[in-house]
């Protein structure tokens, strides 16, 4: 049994088939003629061994010209269906490249955690009038925050998978223990699928060993891969970096699911035209996918795309720009063109705090990209200010908004039998004096088939959305944790070095 996700029956498309053909050909031309500069020796050898051209262009850098047939073979070999497992089998995700079932995931790794408190303010002219307004307190993220965000993810109904939304920056966290603590925080607080990037390759074996303990052994982890990885091995334009490429190679050999992601910025690290950035990112992702299939044919690889436009005032990523949404939809179409499962991005806002700007920007991109049908959508639960801030309050509101989308995506009930029944109903009702269909809506209402009024609505006519969402957040915080069984935690602490003692939840179980 897998999670239901959002089934998009008629996916939104920007590009026509001829456009997809053009982009595909342009990407193949880029890879075979311009090539990609690879900083990793093992990857250079692997590409060369598979028939790619490799020529040195500097110290430790080779230009790799990948022939189209190698790319096409990799696309053919890459699995079209990928299972992302979960501690709770009911939370498993099945990503099929040809099917537009969308799973929603949190992420990415922001440095800032945004606390919100509500303080009373009194009207100077009318001391009896008091309003509560939000006050935002940004601070560096910690392991406790990550644990709480995983706990929150567990209770947010529409969230299908968990990508850590906050970078752990405690004083006792370093590059040698970061990965094990990061994955343990996630796995010990949510039974949903856990995806993350790796900080240090030296920790890969420990992370996998931990996942095997949690999943029930090596084979159990292969059958139910409760963790997967994101690798941003390409630095745009067209440069394969050393450390992440090495990480990718090792993950491929382990056979665990991996996302090949690239995040070019239109106007700085990619051409500003839609054709330019999309053909470049497609080439970059295809290069990564090709490497995975050379290293280990059949590696479960996900086509990942995070194309953005540059903000011209500060050259940051303009996630809220409509162009970024357009590029992402194009990439979703390219992944579907190849029949590969797609990791896409939406819902990131440029706003630094929750409010109208964040609501408008995240809904704009979330709705459109989700409707284009990526199988795995990093939809920025709680993310603000580009990718740099995580607000749990925003995450609670995002869940509400995705519930609206889930309602919208329910299939229409149009069939001859139903139409005949409604014809009779209309004919009967127009004969009545009141002409109301009250009795027909009640069963739907009772069975939960109708959407409810916006849950943070204030019937007194005030805008209390943030305040009410905060009340919901406080409620979710009090829910019992979804921790690993004590014997599993014990094994993890026994066998995996470096996990901080304060993350041990056995006493609170």
């Amino acid at each position, binding site marked *: 049994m897998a999670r239901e996700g959002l089934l998009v029956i008629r996916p939104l498309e920007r590009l026509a088939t001829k456009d997809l053909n053009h982009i595909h050909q342009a990407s193949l031309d880029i890879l075979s003629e311009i090539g990609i500069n690879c900083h990793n020796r093992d990857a250079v050898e692997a590409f060369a061994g598979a028939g790619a051209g490799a020529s040195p262009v500097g110290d430790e850098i080779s230009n790799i010209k990948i022939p189209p047939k190698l790319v096409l073979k990799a696309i053919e070999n890459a699995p079209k269906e990928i299972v992302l497992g979960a501690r709770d089998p009911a939370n498993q995700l099945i990503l099929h490249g040809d099917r537009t079932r969308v799973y929603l995931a949190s992420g990415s790794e922001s440095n800032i955690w945004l606390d919100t408190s509500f303080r009373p303010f009194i009207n100077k002219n009318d001391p009896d009038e008091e309003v509560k307004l939000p006050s935002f307190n940004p601070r560096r993220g910690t392991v406790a925050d990550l644990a709480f965000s995983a706990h929150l993810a567990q209770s947010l109904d529409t969230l299908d998978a968990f990508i850590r939304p906050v970078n752990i920056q405690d004083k006792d966290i370093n590059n040698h223990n970061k990965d094990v603590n990061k994955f343990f925080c996630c796995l010990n607080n949510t039974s949903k699928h856990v995806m993350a990037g790796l900080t240090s390759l030296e920790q890969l074996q420990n992370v996998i060993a931990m996942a095997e303990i949690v999943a029930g052994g090596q084979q159990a982890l292969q059958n139910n891969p409760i963790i997967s990885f994101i690798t941003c091995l390409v630095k745009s334009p067209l440069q394969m970096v050393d450390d992440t490429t090495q990480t990718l190679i090792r993950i491929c050999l382990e056979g665990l699911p991996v996302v090949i992601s690239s995040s070019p910025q239109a106007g700085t690290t990619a051409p500003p035209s839609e054709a330019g950035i999309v053909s470049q990112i497609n080439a970059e992702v295809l290069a990564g996918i090709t490497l995975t299939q050379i290293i280990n044919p059949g590696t479960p690889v996900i086509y990942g795309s995070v194309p953005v436009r540059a903000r011209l005032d500060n050259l940051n990523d303009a996630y809220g720009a409509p162009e970024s949404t357009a590029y992402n939809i194009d990439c979703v179409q390219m992944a579907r063109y190849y029949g590969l499962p797609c990791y896409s991005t939406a819902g990131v806002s440029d706003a630094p705090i929750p409010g109208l700007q964040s609501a408008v920007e995240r809904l704009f991109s979330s709705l459109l990209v989700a409707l284009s049908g990526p199988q795995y959508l990093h939809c920025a639960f709680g993310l603000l200010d580009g990718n740099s801030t995580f607000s749990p309050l925003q995450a609670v509101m995002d869940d509400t908004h995705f519930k609206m989308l889930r309602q919208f995506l329910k299939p229409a009930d149009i069939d001859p039998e139903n139409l005949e029944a409604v014809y009779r109903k209309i004919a009967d009702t127009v004969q009545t*004096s*009141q*002409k*109301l269909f*009250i*009795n027909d*809506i*009640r*069963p739907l*209402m*009772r069975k939960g088939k109708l959407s409810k009024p916006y849950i943070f609505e204030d019937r007194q006519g005030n805008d209390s959305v943030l305040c009410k969402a905060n009340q919901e957040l406080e409620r979710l915080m009090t829910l019992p944790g979804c921790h690993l069984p004590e014997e599993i935690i014990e094994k993890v602490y026994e066998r995996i070095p470096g996990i901080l003692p304060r993350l041990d939840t056995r006493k609170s179980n």
Partner: protein
Amino acid sequence: METEIIEKIRENLIQGRKSEEDEGIDETLNGTPGVIELTEEALEKGVSPKEIISLAITPGMEAVGEKYDSGEYFIPDMLASAQAAGAAMEILKPHLEKARIASKGRVAVATVKDDIHDIGKNIVVILLKGAGYDVDDLGIDVSTEKIVEEVKTRGIEYLGLSALLTSTMTRMKEVIEALDKAGLKGKVRVLIGGAAVSQEYADEIGADAYCADGFQAISAIGALKQQ
């Protein structure tokens, strides 16, 4: 036996099941007799109309009102129950007349001339019938002359006027003035409602009450009765 059927009428009223064809909230009641069938059965068994009203319909509607106030029930639930209550009252009407038991009051409701919107008006009609009033639905786009005529000939005590449009709300003032001219001032109390109007407008045109929704129509008439 008598208690049992009274109980059943009240329960089905709370469930909003007018007849056996209706679905309520409790699915186990599906296909069983609704308020209409049960009221008829109760009369056949000799239960007095007064008992049916005082022990089943009135407390049933009170329970529905409490459920609505607490957020458990929504407007469609209230309307379904009110429809069931209204249907029971229709069955009981000849029996009440025979026993010389008066209704709670005679009400007419109309959407004014040039306005064809009737959802609000229809809801008011359902709720007032469910609350035990004798209600005449005069329809939509009703001319001022017809309204005055109906009030006069039917002995209407409370007149509800509805208008959705700002272009038609002025008809309400016309009606009130025409009622005055016809010598009906004080004999019929006028309540107004609809998206276009407000308490301020009601005061301006000399209406006796403004009702923001159907529930306020019930409470407004109740308050006017006390005056």
